[in-house]
């Protein structure tokens, strides 16, 4: 009987953190500190990335170290389209999502034939492959990357150049994603995915194509990862191969695990919390990272004590 209450508290926590992000533009204006808004936007973008990874880790039960590749592909899709003058959001955003999903399909098809540590290593390898390709693109700044000339137009308007408007877009997308992910988790597909995770042999014997079910989840996660990459590129105004880095993938994994792998809102909370605390601490004090390390360790131990489900 503990578990439902835990889930409720997870939703409440995520709602609180979202409210904090939603108030950031007000706080930034009152305090005259634009950095606060940028930080909140970044937290929202990482929450989207973490929710997409939670799809693979939590729902499908597969830990991936290659998730940064989807962010990178989404960001580079925007950079490349911008180079051709096609950075219009209505065009470049779907393109970023499709490009990342298109990379997820064949790589996932191969990787999903394995499980556990092998799966981690294969996703890492596919991530690094994309990283080296991005590094070799001299036209797009090679390993330095390149700045974006401008925020992408939204149906021709300059709306997204305003930090508040972009922030609102990120929060709306995050909210929509969370609702969709919860709905998906409670639907037929979500149930099939759960059976494939907990009892793959049984799922197959009932008639579910286990690899296909997992692949759909992987491709969906990849596409949403591409969305997060597009947003991250706009948020930072810069695209570089660092977006493909496995360390970023590892960070995303930490966010998901910190917030609780079982639910999308947990992953979002973990991401928001980690971005805010990390940036806040490193801004406040040069020893901030030590404090962060201690916090992470504490959170991990607390999770172990509470059990995986929380």
């Amino acid at each position, binding site marked *: 009987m503990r578990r439902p209450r835990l889930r409720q508290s997870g939703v409440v926590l995520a709602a609180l953190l979202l409210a904090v992000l939603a108030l950031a533009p007000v706080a930034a204006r009152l305090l005259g500190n634009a950095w606060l808004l940028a930080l909140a936007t970044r937290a929202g973008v990482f929450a989207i990335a973490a929710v997409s990874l939670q799809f693979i880790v939590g729902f499908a039960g597969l830990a991936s170290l290659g998730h940064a590749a989807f962010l990178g592909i989404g960001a580079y899709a925007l950079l490349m389209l911008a180079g051709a003058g096609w950075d219009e959001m209505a065009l470049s955003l779907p393109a970023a999502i499709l490009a990342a999903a298109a990379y997820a399909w064949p790589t996932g098809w191969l990787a999903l034939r394995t499980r556990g540590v092998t799966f981690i290593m294969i996703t890492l390898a596919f991530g690094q492959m994309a990283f080296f390709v991005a590094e070799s693109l001299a036209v797009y700044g090679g390993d330095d990357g390149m700045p974006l000339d401008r925020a992408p137009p939204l149906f021709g308007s300059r709306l997204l150049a305003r930090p508040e408007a972009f922030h609102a877009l990120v929060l709306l997308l995050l909210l929509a994603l969370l609702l969709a992910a919860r709905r998906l988790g409670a639907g*037929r597909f979500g*149930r*099939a995915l759960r059976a494939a995770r907990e009892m793959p042999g049984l*799922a197959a014997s009932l*008639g579910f194509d286990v690899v296909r079910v997992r692949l759909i989840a992987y491709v969906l996660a990849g596409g949403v990862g591409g969305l997060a990459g597009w947003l991250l590129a706009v948020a930072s105004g810069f695209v570089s191969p660092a977006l493909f880095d496995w360390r970023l993938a590892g960070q995303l994994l930490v966010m998901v695990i910190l917030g609780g792998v079982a639910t999308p809102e947990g992953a979002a909370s973990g991401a928001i919390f980690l971005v805010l605390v990390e940036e806040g601490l490193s801004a406040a004090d040069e020893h901030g990272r030590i404090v962060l390390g201690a916090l992470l360790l504490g959170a991990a131990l607390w999770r172990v004590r509470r059990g995986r489900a929380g």
Partner: protein
Amino acid sequence: MSVLAAEGLCKSFGALAVTQAVSLDLRAGEVHALIGPNGAGKSSLIAQLAGTLAPDAGRVRLEGADITRLPPHLRARRGMARTFQISAVVGGLSALANVALAVQAHGPRPLAPFRRADGDAALEGPARAALADVGLADRAAVPAEALSYGERRVLEIACALALVPRVLLLDEPLAGMGHAEGRRIVALLAGLRGRCAMLLVEHDMDAVFALADRLSVLVEGRVIASGPPAAVRADPAVRAAYLGAA
């Protein structure tokens, strides 16, 4: 015509031949028991019939069609259901949701993304019927992990039945059960007789002789006898190899 047939199945792991030219058939509506001492190759044979293990040679036919290379999920879609030697249910889901999962897999739009699975009448109607069939109707809302071991095994049979199978492979359905629980399963299976053909792998000889229309005896990867229970029981080779030792 037989519903399910194994034709000359062979399987070796290195020098160990676990299945040696095994032929076996399952007729419509019958209960065919497969018995044999530990290590006789019963589990390997079931795995080859269910599609989780590829035979080195030979064929498996389901209603005449060659399904030897078909993966398990496609066999399920063609009317094969199975239960596992080790209990297999989704523990966190209710008994009803477990059966609904089987109905979902078997029915249209099995992977519909946004339709809520909980409370979906298209899934839960047939699922409730299957639970009622096995006598678990009053336990529908209980999480599978909270059911007793015996109830969980019954739930697995309900899941298999929800697929409306032509063939049901039962891999030691009485394993690990007390006497009373075992009799409950035997009564349940007897009541299901005729709904589908059943291949019953079981060590409990009382259950086997109570249920089987025919009996095949597997020893060291070979079928040494096959036929009506009385004939098999009288077979000298069987007595020597198996029943005599019991």
